[in-house]
């Protein structure tokens, strides 16, 4: 998976994962805060697992320190996948 991944693909992966975890699809947008879509620390650990598996990168808890919105999560992954 070292080949370049389109940001759109990552956004779709994150959105689908959060929806699968039970986030309400009606409020699940880039601008929504994690609190608004009821995403907590356990969801982030699960999301990390999905992303690491799909894009072969390592994410730590600390990487999510400044993450506030769904868009922040997507941008973080896009940056790390490069």
């Amino acid at each position: 998976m070292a080949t370049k991944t389109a940001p759109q693909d990552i956004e779709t992966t994150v959105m689908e994962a959060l929806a699968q975890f039970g986030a309400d699809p009606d409020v699940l947008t880039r601008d929504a805060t994690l609190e608004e879509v009821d995403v907590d620390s356990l969801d982030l650990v699960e999301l990390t697992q999905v992303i690491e598996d799909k894009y072969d990168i390592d994410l730590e808890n600390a990487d999510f320190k400044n993450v506030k919105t769904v868009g922040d999560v997507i941008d973080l992954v896009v940056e790390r996948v490069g």
Partner: protein
Amino acid sequence: MTLHDVVITGVGAVTPLGVGARELHERWAAGVCGICDGEAPCADFTVTDHMTTKEARRADRSTQFAIAAGDEALADAGWADELPYDAELVGCVLGTGIGGIATIENNHDTLRDTGPGAVSPLAVPLMMSNAGSAALSLRHGLRGPVFSVVSACAAGSHAIGTAVRMIQHGEAEAVVTGGAEAPLTPLSRAAFAKMNALSASGISRPFDARRDGFVMGEGAGVLVLENGDAARARGARILGTVRGYGSTGDAHHITAPQKEGRGGARAMTIALQDAGLTPEDVDYVNAHGTSTQLNDRAETLALKLALGERAREIPVSSTKSATGHLLGAAGAVEAIATILALRDRIAPPTIGWEEPDEGLDLDYVPGTARPLALSNGKPAVALSNSFGFGGHNATLCLQAA
């Protein structure tokens, strides 16, 4: 010190007879059996009817049953909108035999097949044996004493007994209590089968000469118990009273009951003494009655030891003839079935009982439910027994309102 009396104000159940305490009570009384192909699943249970996707993903099947039964029990008690007491005085004690075994098995498969990195971050909160009490505490904001008890097939009754003591001693004004189990998994099936505990014929017929083991089932039972004075002061509908509780250990064998049923008999005697009652006051016994050779014989002897001649005069029936054996949920589901039977003044049947076994000569209520023979119009009293591997014995003494 004067102990507070403890009343039952709400009940909820998910069982192989359906979703709801009413389904449990009415279908058992009507002689319906929830066993299908040698197992007793909760086939009518649809998790999304009871909770969100997120809540469902964060709960093992056993906890999902507890949540659904808990919602029903709290609504039944009139607690659906808000707690009638300070949340810090409302506890939750649930029993389970195994905990989240499906979660353990699924994650072990993942570990073996894919490696440690693929194990779910939700594995621990789902598989821990205290998940049920934690889930109900979170869902309803219960901030009093909250924990789970583990004593194999006696866990449901131990949970209720523990809740009773908390209320009696003023540690809690009310306790949400009961038990939950979801053991219909490959490892659990194989393990119980390998120790010859499961019925080879797939039939649960407690106390019948042809009984050949228990039929495994799943489900949950939840009761709302309240301090009697507090419940009456708020005008609660009272279903019945937990009059007494007795708990003993066999110290005999890891799986077999003591042959003469001495440990079980002591639990019954202690429960009656705790209730301030005598064997003459008992109108019905909801037996542990698993359909294993050993339990049903030892329990019959225990009943004779504890109740003397009275044991031959009163109906003794087993809910497990209709639901199979719900392990750590059994005591709770059976306490609910018992209090509703007492309310309606009936003894539900031991379904499938036909052939008497030598020495098993009590009135096991064959065929159909029958009215309880009650003298002097007093509220009906019953004992409900639960015995678990490890030699754990627990008896509840219940009385209709």
